[in-house]
């Protein structure tokens, strides 16, 4: 009991640093969730090209970034690029690296959902006289996005949790501050437990929003 109140006092003393770290975590997670979403939709759009070579490149992009550990990519950019005179801040490396990675995963969710669409509807839309772009924005995307809500929101949760690895390239987010704290007071167990609880709390919020979104956007009679 003593240990816990002691620890909470340490947290209180360091609250400015911890809150700053939390802000950095949320900044990174929110940014890559947005850029990764937009990127995923763009990559998904590219997979629909009838150009065989174009499709090959898009498929390669998705496979490459799903198949490569994100950490390798972050290290490559943060520690590798300066060799060629390119120096990027930890935040920028994180945003670029995560976006490339998250967009690939999101594109994969969307292409999987796309395979479940009724091609007859897409043909009917073309027969009505819609342009390819209108078919995409009015029929394909609204359906594919709704079918992908579970995958896409799960990715947002992963973004929040995985953002903690950015501390390995000197991005001082929440987990980095926790490390700092525990290195000073040596209460490692309490520190990591505290971090786990904070992440769990944030994830719960995302889950609640996701459930709400899913219930609201479900296509009647269609299971994702």
């Amino acid at each position, binding site marked *: 009991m003593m240990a816990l109140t002691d620890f909470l006092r340490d947290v209180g003393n360091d609250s400015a640093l911890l809150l700053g770290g939390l802000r950095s975590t949320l900044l990174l997670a929110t940014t890559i969730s947005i850029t990764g979403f937009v990127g995923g939709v763009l990559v998904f759009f590219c997979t629909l090209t009838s150009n065989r070579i174009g499709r090959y490149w898009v498929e390669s992009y998705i496979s490459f970034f799903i198949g490569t550990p994100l950490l390798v990519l972050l290290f490559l950019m943060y520690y590798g690029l300066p060799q060629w005179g390119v120096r990027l801040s930890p935040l920028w490396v994180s945003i670029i690296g995560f976006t490339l990675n998250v967009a690939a995963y999101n594109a994969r969710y969307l292409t999987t959902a796309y395979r479940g669409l009724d091609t007859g509807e897409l043909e*009917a839309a073309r027969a009505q006289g819609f342009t390819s772009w*209108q078919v995409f924005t009015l029929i394909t995307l609204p359906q594919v996005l709704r079918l992908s809500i579970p995958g896409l929101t799960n990715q947002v949760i992963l973004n929040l949790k995985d953002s903690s690895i950015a501390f390995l390239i000197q991005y001082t987010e929440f987990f980095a501050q926790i490390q700092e704290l525990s290195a000073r007071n040596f209460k490692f167990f309490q520190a990591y437990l505290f971090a786990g609880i904070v992440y769990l709390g944030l994830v719960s919020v995302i889950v609640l929003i996701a459930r709400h979104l899913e219930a609201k956007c479900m296509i009647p009679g269609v299971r994702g």
Partner: protein
Amino acid sequence: MALLEIKDLVKRFDGRTVLNGVTFELNEGQTKVIMGPSGCGKSTLLRCLNRLLEPDGGQIFFRGEDVALPDTDIRQHRQRIGFVFQQFALYRHLTVLENITLGLRKLRRLSTAAADKKAAYQLERMEMGAHRLKYPAHLSVGQKQRVAIARALAMDPAVLFFDEPTSALDPLMSLEVAAVINQLRSENVTMLCVTHDVSLARHVTDRVIFLDDGQVKAEDSAEQLLTTHADPRIRQFFGQPAALK
């Protein structure tokens, strides 16, 4: 002048010729039915006529203008044709009403109010007004069919295409569809209808086109083709539709 005049239409898939010089006409206000064995190219023919598929040869005159030419405004052409698909192809993320207003708003550029009004009129015409806020998944097959027809009619097409409108329906509902088509016929809607259904053909049309081996083999009334046509293959087809399905 004929609304549609098709001359020597040719379509190949990977070197295999499916349509091999199809020629026929469809006049304004006329209803024609296209019949023929499975796989003879009926759906392919309809898709070539609105350029969902690219013909490999021949001409398609729409009110005298060849719409098979490369410089044709394809989207403009498609908007003049109401296509009712076999599986109805309703947009499942949209309500019945939205299914109909989408084209009116995005292609015809009507205001939401004007589009709603027009859609409501077509839905009443198809006796679907009470269902306008439902989603496709909550409709019966016959109701989906009516919505698909209302969606096509709302665009004021010059001609309606039906691809196998009764193949998904039970006999009773098939009669209903026949009644709807007859209603449209009495209103002088021009229609081209592909079907396997001999009784539908007899109910709705003056003229049946018999398609086989990629060509129009005969064109006559359904009665005529069924009973007295000289070609035994044609008599047999109409005599035993079930066996050939």
